[in-house]
């Protein structure tokens, strides 16, 4: 559905995307993981025609983005991280406005309301809505053109767990309609929960692209993470670190590492066997907690 080849985008001296290639299949929920500044937003902006790439090729539904931007925009939609609607207008006024801008049909309009359970709050001014309701309105606006591809840019920021689950469940249902979803989030658990495939981006480069299921299986490894209280002495022993206070080792070497720690009075906080979730895997790959 989406084929990105050798994409490069530079801002001044900084390469936001560096020879970036990726393929996303039709009907998938595809997760994009990366730290702030990794290049996720730049990628989404290029895919939505908001900015132009310096070089590289993008094909969406076999159409070259460069030459068919208008057609592509008609069947794709972005759900921005910010609440991109008008707080002073009611839910209905917002939906009416964005529907008219896109010439949405009555059917799509009703579907967007139904999927996001907005029926009972249509006449409420947007600023009076709860965080979850605002997020749902933000998503509903993105569904008005009945898109074949939806880009979600961290759509669950700042909402309660119940609302988050409701949103994630609704996103999972899009697969039933053959919609391709590109999903970025700061919450690894969300990616684990809903994405079929995941790509890890760092410094504008694709680090890894794999199926979420196989990734989670593979990372059930022999790795052991030892969290300690920070000490300058730690640098002496040639340990491998995930961050300043987390030593990465294996079960085979664990005993030796613990002996060294004891000998040099390094205080342990906790020991985790195996990288059991995507978050730890991500930390291993990018070497940072700043997700």
């Amino acid at each position, binding site marked *: 559905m989406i084929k990105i080849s050798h994409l490069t985008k530079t801002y001044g001296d900084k390469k936001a995307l560096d020879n970036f290639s990726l393929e996303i299949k039709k009907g998938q929920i595809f997760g994009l993981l990366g730290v702030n500044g990794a290049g996720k937003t730049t990628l989404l*902006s290029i895919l939505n025609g908001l*900015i132009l790439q310096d070089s590289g090729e993008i094909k969406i539904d076999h159409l070259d983005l460069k030459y068919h931007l208008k057609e592509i925009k008609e069947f794709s939609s972005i759900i*921005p991280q*910010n609440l*991109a*609607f008008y707080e*002073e207008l009611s839910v209905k006024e917002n939906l009416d406005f964005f529907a008219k*801008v896109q010439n949405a049909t009555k059917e799509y309009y009703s579907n967007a309301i139904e999927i996001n359970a907005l029926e009972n709050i249509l006449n409420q001014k947007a600023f009076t809505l709860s965080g979850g309701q605002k997020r749902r309105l933000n998503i509903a*606006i993105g569904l008005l053109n009945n898109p074949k591809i939806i880009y979600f840019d961290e759509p669950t920021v700042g909402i309660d767990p119940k609302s988050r689950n409701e949103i994630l469940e609704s996103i999972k249902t899009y697969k039933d309609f053959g919609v391709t979803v590109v999903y970025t989030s700061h919450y690894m658990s969300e990616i684990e929960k809903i994405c079929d495939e995941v790509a890890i981006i760092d410094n504008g480069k694709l680090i890894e692209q794999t199926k979420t299921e196989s990734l989670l299986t593979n990372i059930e490894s022999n790795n052991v993470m030892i969290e300690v209280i920070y000490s300058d002495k730690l640098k002496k022993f040639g340990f491998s670190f995930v961050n300043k206070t987390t030593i990465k080792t294996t079960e085979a070497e664990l005993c030796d590492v613990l002996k060294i720690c004891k000998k040099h009075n390094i205080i342990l906080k906790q020991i985790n066997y195996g990288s059991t979730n995507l978050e730890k895997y991500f930390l291993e790959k990018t070497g940072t907690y700043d997700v």
Partner: protein
Amino acid sequence: MMFKAMILKELLLVLRDKHALAALFVMPAVFILIMSVAMKNSFSNDNIEFTLHIQDADKSSVSKKILSNIEKNKKIHLINQQKNAQFIMTIPKDYEKNLTSKVIIDVRGSLKSNQINIFKGILLEDILSAKLNKMAQNFKEPAPEAAKVLSSLKVSADNVCQVHYNSSKNIPNSTQQSVPAWIVFGMFFIIIPMSTIYVNERKQNTLARLSSMNVSIFSMAIAKSIPYLIINQLQVIIMLGVGHYIVPLLNAPALEINGSLIALGALSLGLSVAAIGISSLIAVSAHSSEQATTIGGILNILLGAIGGVMVPKFIMPPIMQELTQISPMAWGIDGFLDIFLKSANLGAVIGNVIMLMLFGIVFLILSVLVLQNRIKKGI
């Protein structure tokens, strides 16, 4: 449909912003009332006297009678030299033979419009009296009843004299000065709602979202401008209404619109385009609505001070009067004053209208370019 939706959305947002509405409608109306009343004494016409030079091309008994009537009038001083006269009156050839013809009055000095009206009133009396005298002589059998009826007829000064304003600078009365000045000032205050909405839309990525929905930045800018065009026209109508109906209730002179309404409409459209252009550029360039309203407010006050809003242009020293022309507000005020004081038609103010339109269009294009750039950079 898209355009209609954009216009409706913008109008709803402005109409729900109470502070903006106060700045757009209440502030200029209050200023008009305060300034019209506060300045009315400095614009008073008590004990006024005029200087007049007469060119008599007819040399008839009627023209001599007019001359003698004016000589007796204490409010008008006849002078021999044209250059010192506030008015030059020309009695055309064959005036006596054709009593329906008009004398021509050239206004030369700096005068308020109501002073010109006072002068015309005085003159009307002297000219009519001379004309009636001649008509009475023409009757074979003078009929006292007819003369009585004739003398009681109300005749407009415009039927007996034709006024040419030439390059004279007429001085407005307090209402004529206040209304255009504060209308223009108020119109430029669309910066408040415009910047608030623009900045919110940009920060919340709503503009980027619209852009991803195949709405071009140019269409957005045009669609956003139309509601402000409507609001500006409403401001003009309401403020003219305040000047005409409410100001006289406070014992200040009522606003009279002597000139063409088409000219008034064109000028107010031109002013609106200028106000929208400069407001758009500030709104899209600012990082926050606070920054936009501060910059916009300061700029408006500066343009107003230079352009003759706070201090009437006619009391400024000549060099400052020249300097007013750098402010688009002055182009608007001058146009309004021409319409109110000199009965100007569209042709007389078209230069001001074109300048205002060009000014607005240039700034509007710049604002589209800046906005395009900011959306591309995601800021």
